[in-house]
């Protein structure tokens, strides 16, 4: 196991990168502007790419360098570019109707992080890993998961929901880099590939939504309700 015998420098570097990406998901929660979401997501992907490279270097997993490059290319450049094009084409700047104000969502997000921390600490204690970076990796993974679900629930623009889903995936990706760096390469490649397809689907769907419903706010989707 990599995390059981990790030097202090490597642990602090991993912690720094994990915390930075958690902070960037708070940037998404605290803003209303779609551009800010997009920049935060791109920066988060670059940080995750850096983390993959760092794990590859310290844990001696050369295949992680490839994953770092793919992450940088797909999630750091290509996905943000595709989403940026959708934003420009749709001509939407920000969330207009909000259920939860950005400040309130920040507080809710902070509670989610506390909840994730207490769960992760218990889990890590059971594995005798409570003094390692595993606690932090689990915390960031679970709290980015919860923050992604929060974004899906309280934001209405189609773009925000796509980015919420991408935050969900980013959280798992980040956690799996630290916790299971030896997981076979195939899965990571396919996750990257899937994400690309998903956004292509979303591009199609957003176009359809605009032409057939006339707006990209999911608040207008209320013909099919139970």
């Amino acid at each position, binding site marked *: 196991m990599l995390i059981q015998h990790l030097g202090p420098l490597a642990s602090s570097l991993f912690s720094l990168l994990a915390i930075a990406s958690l902070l960037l998901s708070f940037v998404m929660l605290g803003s209303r502007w779609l551009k800010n979401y997009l920049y935060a997501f791109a920066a988060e992907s670059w940080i995750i790419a850096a983390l993959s490279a760092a794990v590859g270097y310290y844990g001696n997993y050369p295949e992680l360098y490839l994953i770092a490059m793919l992450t940088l290319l797909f999630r750091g450049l290509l996905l943000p570019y595709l989403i940026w094009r959708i934003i420009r084409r749709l001509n939407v700047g920000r969330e207009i109707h909000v259920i939860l104000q950005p400040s309130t969502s920040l507080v809710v997000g902070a509670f989610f992080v506390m909840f994730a921390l207490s769960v992760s600490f218990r889990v890590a204690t059971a594995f005798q890993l409570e003094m390692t970076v595993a606690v932090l990796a689990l915390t960031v993974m679970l709290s980015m998961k919860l923050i992604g679900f929060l974004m899906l629930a309280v934001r209405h623009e189609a773009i925000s929901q796509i980015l919420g889903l991408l935050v969900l995936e980013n959280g*798992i990706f980040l956690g799996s880099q630290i916790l299971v760096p030896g997981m076979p390469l195939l899965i990571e490649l396919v996750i990257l590939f*899937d994400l690309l397809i*998903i956004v292509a*689907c979303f591009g199609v*769907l957003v176009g359809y939504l605009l032409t*057939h419903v006339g707006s990209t706010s999911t608040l207008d989707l209320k013909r*099919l309700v139970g």
Partner: protein
Amino acid sequence: MLGALLLALSLAPLVALVGCLIVRRPRICEALNVVASAVSFLCALPLPFLVDGSPSLFWSDYIIIDRTSAWVIICTSIVYFLASIYAVGYMRMLKEDERLFRFYALFAGFGLTTLAGPLMNSVGIYWIAIELTTLVSTFLVAFERVAESMEAAWKYIMAVSAGISLALLGTVLFYWCGSFVLGPTYQMTWAVLTDAAPKMNPTLFDPCVSARARRLRDQGRIGAHA
């Protein structure tokens, strides 16, 4: 015998998929799809009687079939068969003949992925198969070009993608738990997980896996395919 049936079961929708994309004539696509689903249904029928207590493996252990997956495949193939009979009349009513080959190609693709999913031996590839069913079926839901089906497709892909990201989290956590027993890199197949389950730390999933594995071991079944 069993291997040939499984091959026919999954090749039939694949042939229909490729055939629809090549031929593009609406009536031929209909016929191809109904025939493919009938072949799958007939191949699925004898499966539970051919599979005995221990799972059978094919194609250098990528394909697995046991009693549970045999029953799942029977249920799927019944639905696939009935739905493709119903689709003929329903899709003629829509008068979308020039786009109809896409519908039937996607329909056969959906049949293929749902039938192939339960046959996957690796947990990672199983997840990928489920993800592919999602991607294919989104376009099926969005096939009719009216606002309602766009809305349905959007809601469908949001709910399903969030769900599949939870499944990915579960896969990563299972792999992590197994890496304490089996080392940082191992092939994550169902048999490997079941064998390692009694030695895993039960904190993460006591109610499901460990308890089931202990019960299976008590019944003396684990030895059969260890």
